[in-house]
């Protein structure tokens, strides 16, 4: 449905998007994740034909956005970061205008009424957009993206400015839309992406750093399942014992966290559960375990480590380049 190959966008000397390639199949809901200024919006603007790429190809529904812009754009419903609303129009006038602008062929009255019901804006149908709250404006923006029932929806931070109830509503709406549409949505809220998307594309500083499902991402990047231990006892002695436990690859001390209590990070050999053995051995020496938890990575950790790693890598490259 969406095919992106070696997409690059430069603003002068600034590289906003660097050689990104991915594809999205029909019916997939894909989340764009990345810190502010990572290149999410730029990528979306290129996909929708608002900006042109410096190099690379973007195809929507089989149509190249540069060569067949009108067919490609007709397959997209786009909600930009700031909804493109004419403040001096009523919701009715605005949706009517967007219907004409998109050259929609569906029955005008029923189609617009259906969309309004879907995003719950029937109540403000006759009001001036200028007088609407941020949440309602966001929904009108979403409504305009849905006009014409486009097979591809591109939503740039669709839940910004909504209250928690509305966020839940819009998320479930997007999930429902995902049954019949191909959806790309961007966000920097991890829970949102995790809740709505089948697949996650993480972008950092213009680079694509990960492209996988949430479950796979957390699994892949939490391969080292370390155990954090807090033990009351002498640092050297405990450390010596821990590293002698069968199945432990290595153990390091993280320092005194509470008076007389030290924290240790224990890395087991892959596939081994060493918690039982550690407990019994420590208990035998009368060293009490004050806390034990395995460091399972959440998507958040994956995100932070990926974007941080990338940052330091980029810095290193820069330094290397200068030297």
């Amino acid at each position, binding site marked *: 449905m969406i095919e992106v190959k070696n997409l690059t966008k430069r603003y002068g000397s600034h590289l906003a998007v660097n050689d990104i390639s991915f594809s999205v199949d029909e019916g997939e809901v894909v989340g764009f994740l990345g810190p502010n200024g990572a290149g999410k919006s730029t990528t979306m603007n290129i996909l929708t034909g608002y900006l042109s790429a410096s190099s690379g190809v973007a195809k929507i529904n089989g149509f190249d956005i540069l060569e067949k812009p009108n067919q490609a754009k007709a397959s997209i419903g786009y909600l930009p970061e700031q909804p493109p609303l004419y403040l001096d129009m009523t919701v009715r006038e605005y949706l009517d205008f967007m219907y004409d*602008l998109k050259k929609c062929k569906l029955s005008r009255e029923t189609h617009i009424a259906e969309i309004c019901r879907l995003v719950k804006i029937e109540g403000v149908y006759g009001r001036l957009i200028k007088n609407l709250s941020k949440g309602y404006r966001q929904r009108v923006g979403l409504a305009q993206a849905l006009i014409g029932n486009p097979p591809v929806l591109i939503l740039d931070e669709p839940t910004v400015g909504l209250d928690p109830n509305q966020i839940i509503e819009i998320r479930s709406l997007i999930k429902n839309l995902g049954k019949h549409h191909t959806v790309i949505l961007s966000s920097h809220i991890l829970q949102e992406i995790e809740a709505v998307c089948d697949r996650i594309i993480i972008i950092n500083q213009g680079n694509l750093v990960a492209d996988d499902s949430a479950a796979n991402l957390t699994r892949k990047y939490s391969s080292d399942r370390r155990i954090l231990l807090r033990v009351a006892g002498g640092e050297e002695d405990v450390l010596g014992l821990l590293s002698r436990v069968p199945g432990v690859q290595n153990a390091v001390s993280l320092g005194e966290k509470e008076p007389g209590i030290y924290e240790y990070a224990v890395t087991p050999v892959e596939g081994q559960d060493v918690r039982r053995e550690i407990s019994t051995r420590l208990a035998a020496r009368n060293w009490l375990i004050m806390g034990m938890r395995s460091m399972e990575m959440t998507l958040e950790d994956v995100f932070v480590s990926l974007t941080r790693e990338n940052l330091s890598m980029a810095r290193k490259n820069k330094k290397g380049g200068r030297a």
Partner: protein
Amino acid sequence: MGAVFKREFKSFFTSPVGYVLLAVMTCASGFFFFVFNIYSGIADLSYVFSNLFTVVLLILPILTMRLFSDEKRQKTDQALLTSPSSLTGIVLGKFFAALLMFVLSLVILLVFAVVIAFQVTPSWSVIIGNFLGLILVGGLVISIGLLISSLTESQLIAAIGTLGVSVALMMMDSLTTIFSNIPAVGTVVNFLSVSQKYTEFTSGILNYAYVIFFISMQALFIFLTVRVLDRKRWS
């Protein structure tokens, strides 16, 4: 094109701009009609038209200042440019909406013509020529204003910029006399002189070369506006 045209034309009446234009044009032409026709007892409307030239050049920047600059500021251009409409269609929609608004403000002049027709038979061909001339000049200013408003996000700068060009167009005529003995410059200035061409319309001469001049200049500025919008995607 149709959707943009309709929205743009309507928006002249959801803001004061449309009403201000109608009011100013009605006042100005009413004043000229009183002074040159009723008070002096002359049936020729040409004086009204030739005096309106200045008014049109000064008031039209207000009509065009918002056309693209506001879209950019409100980010509504994202809706326009990502819709399956061509850039040319969008620009033409805005151009014709502003042109129609301008033509609407000239309707009062028809009333004056009818008033005169009660007294004497006016020379309708001259009146039609006058209308055509004024609409062509207006279209030229609108196309220039369209281009300038696509270059900036600020309505104020768009208005002042267009006003500057309008004033330059007015002064071009006095330059023709200064530069008339320098061959190359004289020819260029003469070619660009709008008021001189307009004067021929007001005297009832329909010079096809001038009609083509105005229309091709408008086409040029519309084309440049399309290029500006297109170029923005590449920067």
